[in-house]
């Protein structure tokens, strides 16, 4: 154990030396006794506050007090309080199916619903959160701007480039390239320290990066979401964590009880909503993987069978689509299943069953947005039925 600790210290020393060589010596971490925010910090915080406000006023902010409290409690446990230097951390959720988390210079950290839907253990969530807190503590937005020595590049280092896409129209992609790999590794190093401090199993925490790495396999630098264009790729995160972990071969198992024994259960609704978004977007592979996760939690239900049918439809598996819809109906009489079956029967000119399903659908959903269309289909079906 002792030699492992020595190895770890040595490694930490090496990493620190490398980081010091790469980053500006003038930008001290917030935890440094002599720390004071400078002009760059203040400018970055003003911009960050504007971005935060935009997020808060947009449809992208996912409002769930229970999850938000949990995330903030987790951050509190990782750091020993939400206050970091002169900033207060605030963890919020963004409704977006991409796998992402990012920190702003004002201490606000945002986690996407897409990423939450992949989380199994609290240690995994802690790893992501601690990494992002690392960016805040190390003042990485300021360090990145400082490294570039370019005032116009004031946004450099925001892992918030995503917002440019989300909120559109700023067209600053050319001037924002995200954090350098050194800063990301520095954040990893910080995360490892805080996971240990908060009593989380490092290997368990690092699993999230392995999952993200697998989930994005086959996507190139240019077509990946900004998480990967502003962070070194997930593979590097995995390697970085493994390297830090191997420096302490006798890493303790989880030392403290988690705040939530099963975050996946808490994120159940988030996962379900993300699954629906993947289906709407036509991302059948991602939808498939979430479906499996949901089945593990809630078993075989009519709703999940319906989602499975929709995924089969996306893949062009028409027979399976119909079969799964029929199975869903045996598990529960859902309006969406009735509508799908009715439309399918209508297309196949199976008038009697089409009439039955669509009539039932309208009974179940009197306010259906497509009511006027369904009524038109029913009129046509009735004509066919009458002439048969």
């Amino acid at each position, binding site marked *: 154990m002792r030699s492992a600790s020595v190895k770890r210290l040595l490694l930490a020393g090496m990493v620190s030396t490398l980081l010091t060589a790469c980053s500006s010596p003038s930008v001290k971490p917030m935890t440094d006794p002599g720390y004071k925010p400078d002009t760059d910090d203040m400018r970055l915080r003003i911009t960050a506050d504007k971005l935060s406000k*935009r997020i808060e006023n*947009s*449809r*992208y902010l996912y409002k769930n007090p229970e999850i938000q409290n949990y995330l903030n409690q987790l951050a509190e446990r990782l750091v020993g309080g939400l206050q970091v230097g002169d900033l207060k951390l605030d963890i919020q959720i963004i409704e977006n199916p991409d796998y992402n988390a990012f920190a702003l210079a004002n201490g606000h950290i945002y986690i996407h619903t897409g990423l939450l839907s992949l989380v199994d253990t609290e240690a995994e969530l802690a790893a992501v959160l601690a990494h992002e807190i690392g960016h805040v503590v190390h003042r990485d937005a300021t360090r990145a701007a400082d490294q570039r020595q370019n005032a116009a590049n004031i946004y450099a280092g925001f892992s918030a480039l995503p917002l440019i*896409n*989300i*909120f*559109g*129209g*700023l067209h600053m992609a050319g001037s924002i390239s995200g954090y350098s790999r050194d800063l990301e590794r520095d954040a990893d190093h910080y995360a490892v320290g805080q996971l240990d401090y908060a009593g989380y199993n490092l290997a368990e925490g690092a699993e999230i990066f392995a999952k993200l790495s697998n989930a994005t396999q086959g996507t190139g630098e240019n077509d990946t979401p900004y998480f990967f264009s502003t962070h070194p790729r997930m593979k590097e995160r995995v390697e970085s964590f493994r390297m830090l972990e191997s420096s302490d071969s006798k890493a303790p198992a989880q030392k403290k009880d988690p705040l939530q024994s099963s975050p996946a259960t808490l994120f159940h609704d988030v996962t379900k909503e993300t699954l629906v978004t993947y289906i*709407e*977007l*036509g*991302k059948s592979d991602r939808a498939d993987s979430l479906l499996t996760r949901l089945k593990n939690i809630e078993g075989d239900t009519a709703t999940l069978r319906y989602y499975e049918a929709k995924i089969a439809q*996306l893949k062009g598996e028409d027979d399976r689509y119909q079969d799964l819809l029929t199975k869903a109906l045996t598990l529960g009489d859902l309006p969406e299943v009735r509508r799908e079956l009715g*439309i399918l029967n*209508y*297309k196949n000119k199976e008038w009697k069953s089409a009439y039955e399903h669509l009539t039932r659908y309208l009974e179940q959903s009197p306010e259906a*947005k*497509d009511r*006027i*269309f*369904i009524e*038109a*289909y029913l009129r046509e079906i009735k004509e066919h039925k009458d002439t048969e």
Partner: protein
Amino acid sequence: MRAIPSIIVLVMLAFSSLYTHAEEAVLNETITHGLDVDFKVPKNWYLYPRPRAIVLTRDGELLQSASISRFKYGKKLPNIDRALEKTALISELGELYMQSIENDPEVSRLEREAFEPVEHGSLPGFTLKYRFKVANGPWMRGRIFVLTGENYIYQVFYRGTERVYYERGEEGFESFLTSLDILKK
């Protein structure tokens, strides 16, 4: 702070007027383009033929515009990885259009107002009415007409700022739509 919306409108106006003179405007003519459509440009409206669409506006494209374009079945809509299949019902196509708009990163808020079947000439289709907020921009109103032919899908968009310009162009848009004749289905 109160002056900001006015400044934005002034900038948009200046920009749109520059744009009007930057291209050759055709006023009030009946024309047939590569899209195989025939229509009358409404009075006081301007026409901008584009490579894949025809755009019309009365007060400037950023304030209000109508456009018509067409494509073959199998095309994927922007923002979603879903194709417009020929086998899809009109209502299914409408849902895909709505999902495409909902996932548009430029749209920060969206409200669906109406979703109805339409028929234009002999072509069946649907119309969607909605209001939306442009990210960092004003509230807009929009209408889509999608008409399904044998080989092509024709889409007609009309949109304008909720304040003033949508309503101001509505009559012109209606007359454009009434005059629209789709020649190749």
